[in-house]
């Protein structure tokens, strides 16, 4: 599975630092985040609430609310172009066209006072040729594509159910055939049965349009279902990254392990659930060393004082943890004490 050649990246984030500067103090949302999304592939971004997943997604669109959010350093490249140095106009041309985003809560993601077809047509009109009528026609086609009768396009969001709203949001995101689709927990707010439908549909559409995708989720099931690669994010940093197999079969980081242990095991219902103890550290007051250290069963003295560096298990798999070095990284799962 090794990749030698220069990777064809749709998006690349390097050493991104984002702070939220509020009256209550400075919150470190992203702390040197690194991310790569390959063309046509799906990257899963996994982590707890508040780890910085959504911020990562928004930063790709440069939509971090400012104030209070500030991109302090780092680079974000789309198709090799640095978007941080772009003007507002250029950025607007990218949003919805090159990169589209599906937001977490379909209930609130649609403008309540505009018909859905208009909301879809709006993005088409912005980025594609043709007038209002053409855009509306396309909008209805998009609705059909996501399984909503085009005739319902003239209705308002409140007339749709949650799952249908999410389909509308997806239709809107895919309307201009974006190169990169960011899906921020697209199914969290939906019923389980609807979740599966929506997920299936997204899979189908991704294949059809060969879209790259960033799947933001805390649900490892979804990751297993849809992703090619996975980045595990904790306190604004990717602490483990690898292919689906790397992460699922060769879990290294104690946090990743904790995530898996939190899942009930269907085969062995007697097995004890081992949730990760404690809560995410206060992002405005991160520990000096490893951010996960206070919750880590394997914490050592060094973890408290020094940030761990990156250790590669393979070309595709790396982990940031003091437990590992070049020598022991291949040794299998997290070593136990």
């Amino acid at each position: 599975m090794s990749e030698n050649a220069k990777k064809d990246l749709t998006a690349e984030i390097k050493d991104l630092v984002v702070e939220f500067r509020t009256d209550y103090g400075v919150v470190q949302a992203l702390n040197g985040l690194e991310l790569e999304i390959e063309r046509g592939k799906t990257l899963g971004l996994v982590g707890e609430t508040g780890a910085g997943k959504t911020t990562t997604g928004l930063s790709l669109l440069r939509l971090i609310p400012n104030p209070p959010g500030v991109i302090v350093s780092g680079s974000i490249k789309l198709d090799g172009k640095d978007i941080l140095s772009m003007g507002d106009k250029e950025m607007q041309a990218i949003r919805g066209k090159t990169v589209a985003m599906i937001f977490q809560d379909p209930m609130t993601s649609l403008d309540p006072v505009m018909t859905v077809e208009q909301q879809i047509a709006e993005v088409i009109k912005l980025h594609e040729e043709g007038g209002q009528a053409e855009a509306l026609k396309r909008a209805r086609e998009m609705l059909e594509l996501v399984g909503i009768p085009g005739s319902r396009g003239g209705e308002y969001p409140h007339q749709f159910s949650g799952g249908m709203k999410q389909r509308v949001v997806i239709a809107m995101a895919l309307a201009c055939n974006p190169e990169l689709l960011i899906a921020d927990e697209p199914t969290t707010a939906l019923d389980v049965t609807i979740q599966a439908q929506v997920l299936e549909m997204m899979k189908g559409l991704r294949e059809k349009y060969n879209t790259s995708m960033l799947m933001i989720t805390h649900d490892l099931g979804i990751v297993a279902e849809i992703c090619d690669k996975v980045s595990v994010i904790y306190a604004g940093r990717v602490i483990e990254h690898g292919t689906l197999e790397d992460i699922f079969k060769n879990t290294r980081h104690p946090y990743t392990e904790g995530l898996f242990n939190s899942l009930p095991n269907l085969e062995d219902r007697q097995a004890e659930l081992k949730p990760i103890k404690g809560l995410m550290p206060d992002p405005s007051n991160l520990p000096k060393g490893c951010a996960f250290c206070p919750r880590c069963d394997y914490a050592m003295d060094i973890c408290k004082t020094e940030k761990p560096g990156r250790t590669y298990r393979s070309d595709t798999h790396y982990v940031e943890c003091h437990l590992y070095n070049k020598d022991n990284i291949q040794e299998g799962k997290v070593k136990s004490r």
Partner: protein
Amino acid sequence: MIKFIIKRLVALIPVLLGVTLLVFFILDLAPGDPAKTILGEQARPEDIAALREEMGLNDPFIVRYGRYMFDLVQGDLGTSYKTRDPVGEEVWARLPNTITLALTSTVVAILLALPLGIIAAIKQNTLFDGVSMFISLLGISMPVFWMGLLLILFFSVKLGWFPVAGADQGIKSLVLPSVALGFMHMAAIARTTRSSMLETIRQDYIRTVRAKGLPEHEIITDHALRNALIPTTTVIGLQIGQMLGGSVLTESVFAWPGIGRYMIQSIQGRDIPSVMGCIIIFAIGFALINLLVDLIYGFIDPRIKAQYK
């Protein structure tokens, strides 16, 4: 839609009935004899007695109220104790003035408030935001009659730009009262506009729109404003209602010949039919404005329109 309007108008009837009973009752508590007030300090008892009889003041409360309501349902607001003219005529003659003042000051208030509130919200926490919100607070905090007197002092007496009082110089007469009243209401509207804009701007759907690549000004005009207008419309409606009441003070500072001033005069003269007439007109006006506001909601917010079945 029409059904909705009719339903609302029908629902208005019991409220208005309650209003008449309430006000009739309150005014009945008033000490002082209308007949005595009309005839003045020098009146003789026999004249007062004769006038009381003529005005039907000797009947019990229920009889008087019943008689009043009987006339009212026939569209007769009664006869003014003071002028002996039909109250309907008295009120009707002054109504246009009050409506004009309320409308112009609403226009003044909206024209000032919307841009102020929107820009303040967009430039939240900037100097502009601070200054405009401070101005709005001043508008809320300054008693309107004080504001009126200061305006007269400055613009009429010192500068001589506008007439001191009255309504006989057309638009020139209208400027100061509208500004005084409008400024007060501008404040409330601007603040609501700002806060609802702020709330709207933070909504997920605005983020969605942003993610579509819509230019910022279009986001504001096409999405944020339209949504923010819903609470703003409520406040504007409430403000017009308040303006009807608040015009009482403005009208007396600027000698504006409207219903508000008429009502005060009537109250002082214990001219109960006139006071009743004014209150009923105000209550109807208030209700109609609220109805209008609800209809406007329908145009802005399809969720509400759906309920107008």
